[in-house]
């Protein structure tokens, strides 16, 4: 821990506004070091589970959370009012936390996934996965990476994302891997809160003014085509996690319930096609992800030996 404190000579102490905050054992103002989010957690792979497949699955769920959290955090200081600004930032923070745990779990299960950095780099595994992979290595669904629209688009997407992710996490609380099960049990409470927030705003916008109704209808036309991808099976998910196809009915029921209260109908839009059958889960993304990653990763990539 001590090597993380910035040391300085005492001579210039009075000239430095940070002097009282740094290198002083009595109190300190900054986080002192990276901490392994799974410090002391038993990460042994349970019998009958393929370690590399478990890692791939954790990468999928971790990337969904990481990429979507980045999109949400782009809203900071831009929401219609301060309360919503804080709400969106809080939701993003929950998702970053889930991403951190899942990426750390992926790295522990299959160290070969983790990008290598120069010898002696202090960047922890989950950060290497977050900051040192290119778009093609990300396994998030494409709904997570779409560029932000207006507040109605935020609410429509958040409703769909949180409904879908909550359905997955509810099924993972009994997962064979105790780490995944624990992350899911924690996440369920957070995601249920996110879904309620989105559902209430969805109803408010639908039943608000003509303008808010029109905007919500427009937003649904951009969000709904990305729903089929959420419930399309992949081999990895079906074998080691939750088969997304089994979620379709439950997600449909929840969305229908919200739409009924909101008095709005789902758009008749075809699903967004993949490229030769490949979608986000296969590493096939829209251009938007590259731009998002460029902004998110640029500082970390400039300092592969950095300690934050």
């Amino acid at each position, binding site marked *: 821990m001590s090597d993380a404190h910035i040391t300085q000579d005492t001579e210039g102490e009075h000239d430095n506004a940070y002097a009282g905050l740094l290198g002083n054992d009595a109190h300190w103002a900054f986080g002192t070091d990276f901490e392994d989010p799974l410090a002391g957690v038993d990460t042994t792979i349970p019998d009958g589970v393929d370690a590399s497949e478990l890692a791939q699955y954790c990468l999928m769920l971790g990337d969904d959370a990481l990429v979507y959290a980045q999109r949400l955090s782009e809203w900071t200081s831009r929401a219609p009012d301060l*309360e919503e600004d804080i709400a969106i930032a809080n939701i993003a923070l929950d998702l970053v936390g889930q991403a951190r745990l899942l990426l750390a779990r992926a790295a522990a299960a299959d160290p070969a996934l983790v990008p290598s950095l120069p010898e002696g780099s202090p960047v922890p595994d989950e950060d290497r996965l977050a900051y040192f992979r290119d778009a093609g290595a990300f396994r998030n669904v494409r709904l997570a990476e779409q560029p932000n629209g207006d507040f109605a688009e935020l609410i429509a997407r958040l409703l769909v994302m949180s409904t879908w992710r909550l359905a997955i996490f509810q099924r993972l609380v009994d997962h064979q891997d105790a780490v995944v099960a624990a992350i899911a049990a924690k996440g369920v409470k957070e995601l249920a809160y996110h879904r309620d*927030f989105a*559902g209430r705003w969805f109803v408010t916008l639908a039943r608000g003014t003509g303008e808010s109704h029109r905007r919500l209808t427009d937003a649904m036309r951009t969000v709904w085509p990305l729903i089929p991808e959420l419930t399309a099976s992949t081999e990895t998910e079906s074998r080691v996690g939750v088969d997304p196809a089994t979620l379709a009915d439950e997600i449909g029921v929840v969305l229908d319930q919200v739409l009924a209260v909101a008095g709005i109908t789902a758009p008749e839009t075809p699903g967004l096609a993949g490229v030769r059958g490949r979608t986000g889960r296969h590493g096939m993304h829209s251009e938007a992800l590259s731009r998002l990653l460029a902004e998110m990763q640029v500082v970390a990539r400039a300092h592969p030996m950095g300690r934050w």
Partner: protein
Amino acid sequence: MTTLETTAVQRARAIASEVTDPELPMLTLADLGVLRDVAVEDDGTIVVAITPTYSGCPAMATMRDDLVHRLTGAGFESVRVRVQLSPPWTTDWITDDGRKALADNGISPPGVAPRGPVMLSLTPTRRAIQCPQCGSGDTEVTSEFGSTACKALYRCRACGDPFDHIKEH
């Protein structure tokens, strides 16, 4: 466990129990229910287990550092803090002392955390809570999210004061 080890664990537990939460400094980590276990290993290392409140709680690293700092300051040479993910933290673990300390400091303590199946709720969460300033029950939610992951923001209609409520989790 030898008598010496038992004494060491008891002393370490007493010290760890006094460490306060970085964001709710009126609460100890024990009152918050985050401090789950204090044990001693064969080589004398003190191992403290803490459970995160929220997945992304940024205070975890500070809690870890504070625990290590206080215990090493009290003479324990080797201290380790481990994360215990399961069972997940719930506000039901906040002690009665902790609830009183929150209320005494103007923060409304949580009600009973929801259990059982997760239900969709399209109306504002109904909580019967009293204003920690004037005691009135005439309060309204301003925002379901607040200044930290664990809080919602309320306002008292009687005295007009805004206040934080620890959300049931």
